[in-house]
């Protein structure tokens, strides 16, 4: 997929996935890279920024397999921000789809 698409969409994907349930970094990286090819290392600076902007919070929880893990959870502000991003995304994608369809009709 085109790189420009991915950059904008990554933030949205992260928020949507954490909104559905709290996740730790590795888990989130796996869930995203199952669908979209990304360099997983770029997720952490993004998670850090979203946390600093108070869209996400973190907490540590023990795991059954070993040491405790840092979990990310969405805040009320994060949910609002996520909704705006979804709206923007929908508006953008439907506009692009419309344009493509119009062009196809002309051809």
């Amino acid at each position, binding site marked *: 997929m085109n*790189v420009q698409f*991915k*950059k904008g969409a*990554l933030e949205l994907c992260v928020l949507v996935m954490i909104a559905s349930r709290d996740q*730790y*970094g*590795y*888990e989130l*990286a796996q869930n995203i*890279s199952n669908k979209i090819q*990304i*360099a*997983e*290392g*770029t997720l*952490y*600076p993004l*998670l*850090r*920024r979203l946390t*600093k902007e108070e869209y996400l919070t973190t907490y540590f929880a023990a795991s059954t*397999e*070993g*040491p405790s*893990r*840092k979990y990310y959870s969405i805040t009320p502000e994060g949910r609002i921000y996520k909704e705006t991003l979804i709206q923007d995304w929908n508006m953008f994608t439907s506009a692009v789809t419309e344009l493509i369809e119009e062009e196809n009709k002309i051809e």
Partner: protein
Amino acid sequence: MNKDQFMYKLAKQLSKLPEKDRKELLYDYEEHFDTGMMKGHSEEELARQLGDPRRIGKDLLAEYRLERAQVEKSVKHILQAIFATMSVSFLNLILVLGPAIGVISLYIGLCSMAIGLAITPFLFIGSMFIGTVEPFFINLFISITLGSGGLLMGSALFFVGKWLYKLTLSYIRFNIRIVKGESAV
């Protein structure tokens, strides 16, 4: 590349940061490796999926500098944020360096002008001793007018400076968000 090599390269990009902050930034990657290895993946495989550590390090550094510049407002911090953002990629360099040089030199120019104007009354007093202030009143009033103009301009520039600081931060943030990692993502 194994875990140690990855972590070493990443840490190298962050070598200028205080120990505590560096450890905090590196923690996420430690945890990533530990979890992945527990799930049966090799260090090499995990490092490959994470991407280029030098690049990630630059991203982290830029984020960190921005946070600092927002929390502790100072010329040093904003300059560090500007430099860290510029080094993320060539495109960032172009998009940040140009406006930064333009805006900073314009601001410095205006500040020196304000200082120049503000000191004209002192120049007037100074030249009184040398004896070249004729016509006296015209020169007196001109110097007072210019001097107060300089002071007004100076205090206006103080607020412009604060505003520019905020503007610069949001521009850098925008720049990082849009341009960041064209090869990394």
